[in-house]
């Protein structure tokens, strides 16, 4: 098929993880399609998820000034890497530290002070690499696909990523103070789709994200006059892509487990890069 509707996971892989296997696959998949359409909703999810997480880790490095302390903080956040186990990921990061730790820094510490210690050097190396990665990813977000579609008039990208002293700030409330989400009008006339998608969500795993999604979808057809808020827009998540992907397109996503049942219920196709 020549037309792809790009979901957030592929955007993240192509922008923030471009050297990893998943990143390379994402970039190759985007090249395979004649037309790749990126909905602004994916940019909004990219901002509120991965970009915010990267900024958090960057700022942890900037404030602790210690690679070891920042990795410990990451471990305590109880997040689990997608492909690695926590132990494997920690081992990989420890190996990085050991690689640089083998270099004698004694004389450098004498000359340059604590900034020459291995932990401090690693901290700044990773902080700078993360920052460069984030700045570059944000700058390229709208050029990675052949077109950016479905603009959201109540969402602003203007001050998404900015620097405050040594810290990176990702705007946590990018939706402008409109009474309701700009998608409200379109969502209200898609009540049948909302009902179908909610039925599917109820069969999916009982995670908090799915419960919020089911509640929002139910609200769309049960109480259509109720204002559709920014939170409800955010909670749509995977359902947004199933609902708004053009019928002649394929949804490009790595999250087939969650999106495929939703898309299938509306007669749409999903493909992994």
């Amino acid at each position, binding site marked *: 098929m020549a037309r792809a509707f790009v979901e957030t996971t592929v955007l993240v892989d192509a922008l923030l993880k471009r050297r990893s296997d998943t990143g390379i696959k994402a970039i190759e998949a985007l090249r395979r399609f004649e037309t790749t359409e990126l909905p602004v909703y994916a940019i909004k999810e990219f901002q509120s*998820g991965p970009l915010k997480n990267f900024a958090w880790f960057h700022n942890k490095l900037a404030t602790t000034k210690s690679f070891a302390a920042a990795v410990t903080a*990451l471990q305590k956040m109880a997040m689990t890497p997608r492909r690695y186990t926590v132990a494997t990921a920690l081992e990989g990061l420890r190996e990085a530290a050991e690689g640089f730790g083998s270099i004698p820094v004694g004389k450098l510490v004498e000359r340059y002070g604590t900034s020459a210690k291995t932990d401090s050097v690693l901290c700044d190396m990773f902080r700078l*690499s993360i920052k460069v990665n984030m700045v570059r990813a944000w700058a390229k977000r709208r050029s990675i696909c052949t077109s950016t579609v479905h603009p959201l008039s109540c969402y602003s990208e203007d001050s998404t990523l900015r620097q405050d002293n040594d810290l990176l700030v990702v705007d946590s409330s990018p939706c402008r103070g409109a009474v309701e989400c700009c998608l409200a009008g379109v969502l209200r006339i898609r009540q049948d789709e909302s009902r179908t998608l909610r039925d599917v969500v109820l069969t999916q795993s009982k995670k908090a994200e799915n419960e919020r999604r089911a509640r929002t979808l139910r609200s769309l057809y049960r109480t259509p006059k109720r204002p559709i808020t920014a939170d409800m827009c955010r909670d749509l998540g995977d359902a947004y892509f199933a609902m708004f992907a053009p019928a002649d397109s394929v949804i490009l996503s790595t999250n087939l487990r969650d999106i495929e049942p939703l898309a299938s219920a509306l007669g749409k196709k999903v493909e992994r890069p």
Partner: protein
Amino acid sequence: MATAAATIRELKPDAGTGVSQPLEAKPNVVAISDSPRYQPSRISIDALYPDSTGATDVFRTSQRLLATAANYVTESAGLRWTDPVASDDKMSQLFPILLELFCCRELGEGFAAVINGLIHSVRNNASEQWDGTQLKEVASVIDSLRSEPYLNLDQAIAYLDRMERVELVPEPPELDILGDWLDGQSLR
């Protein structure tokens, strides 16, 4: 009464002697940018900061280290065909110089980002043979950094892009692990 314009004399260097000669008074004013005497010319960093004048210790150290780094890369390029082992060894010797340069990162974030990129390019290419284009690019980045060490992050990213265009990888491979951990799929 003579006008101000009439009293202005344009000075034009004599082609033979280089000495400026007064010309006849002209009623127009000649802009400095039009004068061949005031065309911009590049001053070398060594002429700008001869040894000990006005620069900080860190700046002077970074200049010395960058000059050493540039020599290693030039020597590596020179040995590439005649003695590939020695050529590769020169690039290995570059690594501790770059690490010491990273200790000069107080010079600015752009400077630090480019040195960081060079460190990881060398580290990631350790098991490969350097090709001529890569050596040329590394030498060019070091030269540029030596003459313009004060960069902003956008300028630094342009340097990193140059390294990537010659198949160098100017970032730690472990970034992949962090990316996997922070990609939003693993939120608690």
